[in-house]
């Protein structure tokens, strides 16, 4: 019997992804372990391998399709001696099970709910804990993922480029009918109010004109208003990719829900720079070159061990105190950023941290990180010193307890212990702290530990 290949969950939290690229075509023979497709999750692009061997009979989801839900059939694999004709026979009874004999699903119809503008709303809700996610499925709420729509409604939606999953159906079983798609505008959120008024309305056309305006919060309507403001200006519209959506949702969540407070401190770098150049000279033969950032990672990891209560993350209704120091480091990449996590950083040598950081940063730029490499961690470091930034305040990457914003090391006049003015290389850092997890004094102690380690770098070798 032909086997359906389902959209894989490439990380524990993945609910949907983009089918970035097919690496096989219909008719290709594949063996277990062969690469089938590249799938883009919210952050990384992952390769998807075949589990069984067989011939790719049919590709159900075209490449480039966004928001493909996990476990959606994406292709059909045929075993020996089967032909493409067997596909219908095996896939159709399955659709019958889903109580949809009134509307046999064509592959085209299957992909329809995946396209769409409303996805960002869904992503934001997922990032907020997922409680609201089921409500966003609109007309399909009554029966899982299946969207009920009349054939005519499907055709009109396809012509207008509407996402049926975002439309609230007013017919029996939440069926989307002509009146619903005609009143819907691209990118409109489920308009529950609109459909109920239509039911009563004698002249649906007159009524439907009002419904989009009744939804000022809809992302589509907002974009419409903003576009209007720039109607006479020259601009380019950039569609949001998964990463941009995730950044927008998570950082909005962070700034709106995390009670940030900020601790600033200057750290004298002269000892560290001297120590680093000595070390690097000796390590040259091994091909190791330590950066200041590597020391900051190590210092942070040690500080988290020294102040174990600060090595914690906020988990909604409780705090998780971590034993190992898992330090995330923000890496800027084209079109966004990643925060790969260096696990057990407190027990690792500087050279091994340095090597892993280089590897992670390189793969982050190629978008080849596996989800477990950028998820987790309790503490993050964001370093903009190389861009000449003196100091800045970073936004906490939830659920982390804190993030260290690192500025450039610059030569400044400072007053030393003897009361004399001298020139020192000073790096200004800001620790952004989640007050739900870490209180002021504890945050100050954490920052002191980081500063002490960096000002007396020898301790990092101990």
């Amino acid at each position: 019997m032909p086997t359906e290949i389902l959209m894989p969950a490439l990380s524990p939290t993945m609910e949907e992804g983009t089918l970035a690229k097919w690496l096989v075509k219909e008719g290709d023979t594949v063996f277990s372990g062969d690469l089938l497709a590249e799938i883009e999750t919210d952050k990384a692009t992952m390769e998807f391998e075949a589990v069984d061997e067989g011939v790719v009979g049919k590709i159900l989801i075209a490449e480039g399709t966004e928001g493909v839900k996990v476990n959606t059939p994406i292709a059909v694999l045929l075993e020996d001696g089967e032909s493409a004709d067997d596909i219908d026979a095996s896939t159709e009874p399955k659709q019958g099970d889903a109580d949809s004999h009134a509307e046999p699903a064509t592959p085209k119809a299957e992909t329809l709910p995946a396209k769409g503008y409303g996805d960002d709303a869904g992503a934001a809700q997922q990032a907020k804990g997922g409680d609201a996610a089921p409500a966003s499925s609109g007309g399909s709420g009554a029966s899982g993922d299946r969207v009920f729509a009349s054939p005519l409604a499907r055709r009109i939606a396809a012509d207008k480029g509407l996402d049926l999953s975002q439309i609230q159906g007013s017919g029996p079983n939440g069926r989307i009918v002509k009146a619903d798609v005609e009143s819907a505008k691209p990118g409109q959120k489920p308009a529950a109010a609109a459909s109920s008024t239509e039911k009563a309305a004698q002249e649906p056309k007159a009524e439907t004109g009002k419904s989009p305006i009744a939804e000022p919060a809809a992302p589509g309507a907002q974009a419409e208003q903003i576009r209007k403001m720039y109607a006479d200006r020259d601009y380019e519209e950039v569609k949001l990719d998964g990463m941009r959506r995730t950044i927008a949702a998570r950082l909005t969540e962070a700034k709106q829900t995390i009670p940030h407070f900020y601790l600033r401190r200057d750290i004298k770098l002269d000892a560290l720079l001297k120590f680093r150049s000595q070390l690097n000279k000796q390590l040259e033969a091994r091909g190791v070159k330590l950066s200041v950032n590597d020391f900051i990672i190590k210092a942070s990891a040690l500080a988290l061990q020294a102040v174990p209560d600060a090595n914690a993350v906020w988990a909604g209704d409780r705090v998780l105190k971590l034993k190992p120091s898992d330090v995330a480091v923000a890496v800027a990449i084209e079109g966004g950023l990643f925060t790969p996590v260096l696990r057990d950083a407190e027990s690792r040598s500087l050279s091994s941290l340095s090597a892993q950081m280089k590897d992670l940063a390189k793969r982050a730029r190629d978008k080849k990180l596996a989800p477990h490499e950028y998820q987790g961690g309790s503490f993050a470091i964001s370093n903009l010193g190389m861009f000449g930034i003196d100091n800045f305040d970073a936004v906490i990457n939830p659920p982390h307890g804190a993030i260290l914003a690192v500025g450039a090391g610059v030569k400044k006049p400072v007053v030393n212990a003897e009361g004399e003015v001298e020139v020192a290389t000073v790096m200004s850092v800001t620790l952004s702290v989640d007050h739900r997890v870490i209180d002021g004094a504890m945050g100050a102690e954490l920052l002191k530990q980081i500063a002490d380690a960096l000002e007396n770098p020898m301790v990092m070798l101990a």
Partner: protein
Amino acid sequence: MSFGIGMTYALAAAEKLAEDGIEAEVIDLRTIRPMDTDAILESVKKTNRCVTVEEGWPQGSVGNYISSVIMQEAFDHLDAPVINCTGKDVPMPYAANLEKHALLTTDEVVEAVRKVTYK
């Protein structure tokens, strides 16, 4: 869509519906075979829905055939399932009171039209 005696129900129902602001297009097929399927399809493409009206049993009715033609030829124009209004699926009773119940009524046609127009 109707023909023969079914037209009395169809026209009466259309009058009733017009009072509620539902404008129905009534087609008298005149002949069952040959059937004017072009007129049927044209009407469905215009209204996106169809109710067939006839006396007789539901199984193997003319309306069944009309439904299948519409489904095959104008599937993408349908906004609702086609409803066949027929007599009840019972042997025709001799008792006058029972006969009345076995026959199609105008109200059933009106109800069917409301169903396919979602009103």
